[in-house]
């Protein structure tokens, strides 16, 4: 409590300055450049102070478990995902990787699938992580026209596609929401 009090006292003048700049902007009904600069300066200063407090608190709290913290974050993300569309992994529908198969990873960044360097073969699994800040809905079109939907993918979600046992030819990855996303993957045995 004592430490928290000291930290709050250190931040009080910054809160005060921020409040005055905000009031000034409100009274003039416009965010003039000067006001904005002041606001930005004091915001940055305040953020720096808050970050320092977080850093020092983390360092001083010997019992703090950073791994547990990460797990908590992960759980909250899963909860958000479950609310919208449960992934196959969450539903326990993902089958174990076949013997001899390889797990490959790909990334989806905003409006394109990032280039990959692996050579996929039959039965391999390809995991695609959505590293953008928008939702995607990928699907794979097989050479015979079959369409396989992957899951709705909120930011941070991972979806997977297992290369069919009899795969051969060009498989096209696209997004129902963003048609500009397109990647062709050739499978040959």
């Amino acid at each position: 409590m004592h430490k928290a009090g000291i930290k709050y006292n250190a931040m009080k003048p910054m809160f005060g300055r921020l409040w005055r700049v905000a009031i000034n902007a409100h009274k003039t009904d416009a965010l003039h450049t000067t006001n904005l600069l002041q606001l930005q300066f004091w915001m940055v200063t305040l953020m720096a102070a808050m970050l320092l407090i977080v850093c020092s608190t983390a360092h001083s709290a010997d019992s703090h478990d950073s791994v547990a913290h990460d797990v908590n974050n992960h759980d909250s993300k899963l909860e958000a995902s479950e609310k919208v569309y449960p992934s196959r992994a969450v539903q326990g529908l993902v089958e174990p990787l076949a013997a001899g198969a390889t797990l490959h990873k790909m990334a989806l960044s905003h409006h394109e699938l990032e280039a990959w360097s692996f050579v996929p073969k039959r039965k391999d699994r390809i995991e695609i992580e959505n590293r953008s800040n928008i939702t995607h809905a990928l699907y794979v079109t097989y050479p015979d026209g079959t369409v396989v939907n992957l899951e709705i993918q909120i930011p941070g979600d991972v979806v997977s596609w297992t290369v069919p046992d009899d795969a051969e030819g060009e498989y096209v990855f696209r997004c129902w929401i963003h048609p500009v996303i397109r990647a062709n993957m050739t499978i040959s045995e």
Partner: protein
Amino acid sequence: MEMGTRPGHCLMGLLLVMNMAVTGISHAGETVSKNDFLRPEGIPSPSSNPLTEDKANLGKALFFDTRLSRDNNMSCATCHAPDKRWSDGRLRPLGSEHVTNARRTPTVLNSAWLSAFMWDGRAGSLEAQAVLPITTPHEMNFDLPSVIARLESIQGYRPLFTKAFGDAAVNKKRITEALASFERTLVSNTAPFDRWVAGDESAISERSKHGFKLFTGKAQCVSCHKSWRFTDDSFHDIGLLTDDFGRGAKVPPQVTLMQYAFKTPSLRDLPINGPYMHDGSMSSLEETIKHYEKGGLDRKSRSLEMKPFELTDAERLSLIEFVKTLDGGPLRVDYPKMPE
């Protein structure tokens, strides 16, 4: 632990915060800068139909020619009129009075850069799109064999086809390639926003610059209205009250997010009084922004990018002022002399 006793942490924290402040971090976690909105240098065209002046000239004649319709009364330009921002200014298209869920006519400006066409994305290229209005019953209501026969009978088209394709043969492929080529030449004029992005600080007002910050920050319009054309060429259910299934009717039913989803329209060269939205249901930018503030109808298909937010009246005005800076004025063309 007191502040100042861990210099390593202090320096690290300060550097991190300064870096965030310098680069600019948007609410959505991605950096957005003015450079993301720079206009491209040239006009793209597919390798299967490279853009040439002769093809565009032929396409221009076809675009304005009412003889491409069964009753000789309608051309592409009837609904994509140069003086109406290459749309028609109507809530619903001409002749669609008895059509269920008729959709507003989109502009053809900047279509060279599109990857999906029509409100539901059912056409994958300009060439594929070009034939749809010709054969749609409530539009030009014709069929391709009849169009070809009619064009073959017009002697004035022979030199145009010859210049564009090497001989005078008329076929569906050539008609659609020429129409697509002309449409690719329709590019928005340089707008005040473009001059600002290029470095002219006086090109737009301070209020507009504030609007740009809201656009890319608090209001997160940029989640979908991105790039120099202010669209992601993608599909979203924005929570409008409608019976129209949109892209949902074109994709597997499991793709719930595409139900009631329509293509994000560009924000360039907007007619000031609308109509806006796929169904023309809104007539002012203020009404449109308020819709996004509320977030629209909450249903399973609603885009996850639709996140309600609050704007003050002043902020809303700033946002509107910003959108107006995307208007480069009407793109005029000389009307072609119709081949006889």
